[in-house]
């Protein structure tokens, strides 16, 4: 017998976990706290009417709009979030901590406040809105406004997750690539981004999921116009007043989409960056 400190499951044993037994109770309560409400929604679903409810014109409009705008806002997050994360992770500069704090602000800000902020930026009387209006571009209460509202709240998810991946990967590989004659853009394309791909992918999925669930900022900045700005969460909130069954059915639909999205991104949690 040679009891090892890190007996692998292959030997039939399990490694020492260090979890006190009493910890399982609050852990179970925590898990139930999340699962029970989902079960409650399931229990409330009117299965006989489910299909007609989720395939009504209003529902399909809302679902289609949600998926389209969330895809667009995720793209926006990638276009601006990847450079932001690179700058935050790779080069220290004055005011970096401040910039990071502000980029992460939407994580803790009530979305309705974000919506108001966007309104006073891109709205008709807003900071940029006036100039945009002169150029013939109206953003508030449009399709674009939905995308902007979603991107505003979703951007921090991408930046946080990518910045973490970049810091974990370190810049050793990038330095080697540079001494091998690769210009900075080549290093970014062929070394940096492939190395942090898992972090980038999960960041993008989280942004998409956050966009899908966006409610407060969208309602404030984009309004609730069927087929234009009324996304799935807005539709659910609206139906709740008039048709509870429809609200429940659509909720289940949103839960299913969210579960699918998160499941896709977390399928390989063990994947590590580096050799």
């Amino acid at each position, binding site marked *: 017998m040679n009891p090892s400190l890190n007996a692998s499951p292959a030997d039939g044993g399990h490694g020492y976990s260090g979890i006190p037994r009493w910890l399982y109770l609050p852990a179970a309560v925590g898990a139930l706290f999340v699962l029970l409400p989902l079960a409650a929604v399931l229990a409330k679903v009117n299965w006989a009417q489910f299909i007609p409810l989720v395939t009504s014109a209003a529902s399909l409009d809302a679902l289609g709009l949600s998926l389209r705008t969330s895809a667009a806002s995720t793209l926006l997050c990638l276009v601006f979030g990847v450079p932001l994360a690179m700058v935050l992770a790779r080069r220290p500069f004055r005011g970096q901590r401040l910039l990071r704090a502000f980029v992460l602000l939407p994580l803790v800000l009530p979305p309705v406040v974000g919506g108001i902020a966007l309104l006073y930026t891109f709205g008709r009387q807003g900071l940029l809105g006036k100039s945009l209006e002169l150029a013939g571009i109206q953003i508030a209460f449009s399709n674009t406004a939905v995308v902007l509202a979603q991107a505003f709240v979703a951007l921090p998810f991408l930046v946080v997750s990518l910045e973490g991946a970049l810091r974990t990967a370190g810049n*050793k*590989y990038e*330095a*080697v*690539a*540079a*001494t*091998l*004659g*690769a*210009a*900075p853009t*080549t*290093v970014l394309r*062929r*070394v940096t981004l*492939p*190395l942090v*791909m898992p972090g980038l992918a999960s960041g993008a999925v989280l942004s998409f999921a956050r966009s899908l669930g966006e409610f407060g900022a969208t309602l404030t900045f984009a309004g609730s116009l069927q087929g234009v700005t009324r996304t799935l969460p807005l539709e659910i909130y609206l139906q709740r007043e008039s048709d509870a069954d429809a609200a429940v059915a659509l909720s289940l639909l949103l839960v299913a989409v969210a579960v699918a999205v998160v499941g896709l991104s977390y399928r390989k949690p063990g994947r590590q*960056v*580096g*050799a």
Partner: protein
Amino acid sequence: MTFRMTARVHGRLDAEFTVAPGETVAVLGPNGAGKSTLLAAAAGLVKPHGGSIRLGDKVLFAHDGGRQHWVPPHLRGVALLAQEALLFPHLSVLDNVAFAPRSAGEPRARSRETARRWLAEVDALDLAGRRPGQLSGGQAQRVAVARALAADPELLLLDEPMAALDIHAAPQLRRVLKRVLARRSALIVTHDVLDALMLADRIVVLEKGRIVEEGPVREVLGRPRSAFAAGLAGLNLLTGTVTPDGLLVSGPGAAGGQAVSGTPDGEALAGEPGVAAFPPSAVSVFLELPHGSPRNCLPVAITELEPHAGRIRVHAGELAADITPAASAELGLEPGTQVFFVVKSAEVQLYGA
């Protein structure tokens, strides 16, 4: 192409040296001496605070007054091989080696052709299809050598390339390096005297960021002038002032203030600074002052005992003596014991510092 470097990095490096075309220079020194900073400055990964770096007629770095000229790493023609292989984990071995030619604009097929040639050069062609994660440490490091060479660097920098390898993989990599470094300008940082012996033409000894000694490998190891080089050569070293019949040892060390007689080699002039060197195997250890002998007797206190190649190495400050375990037991040596280190004049080599 000649590589000339004068670099100052505050608190870490203040060194000036040259690598002649086709020459391999070994940079040796204790931990924290600034060896890695020196390589990083040469590669362009660290910007020196002052000095200039030239490769042939290309100015890689220059800083005079307020104007600064700095060439980024990818335009230097200087490849770096680090302690870890750092193969890109998302690329196959072949594409790792093809990375530099690809970055230089070669089409994919031709860059892979180049990569195969360099893999063959380091005896690793059979690994071409593997992922870096499937390689042993020694294999990965050989692939890293091929990858660096595929960049066709005008200067190759090696930062302790053998340090992370096990004792079986190191000799093979050393053989490969010996072959590929021939007629190539290279700078190799190492702490292993064997690397310097096998791979380098010249040695530069760095201590606290400054060069304390440099010269051809045989010269530095045969007649070390710095404590570090003497340690590499396995010699005791005493520094002091040359006297007509020996050396007056200076400093606060174990033999400070004592006169040592030895065999001068002609260059040593009385009154000039000089050193006395002798191997630990030439030192005998006595508890009492031996009588009527023309030998050097240095009273010292033992600081440490350790096994050394079948014998006991007796340390007394910076001096060491090798004796048999039986002799050590008979004398009852332990740290703190006051003893005499005795060495024949004929065994002591005297030369100018």
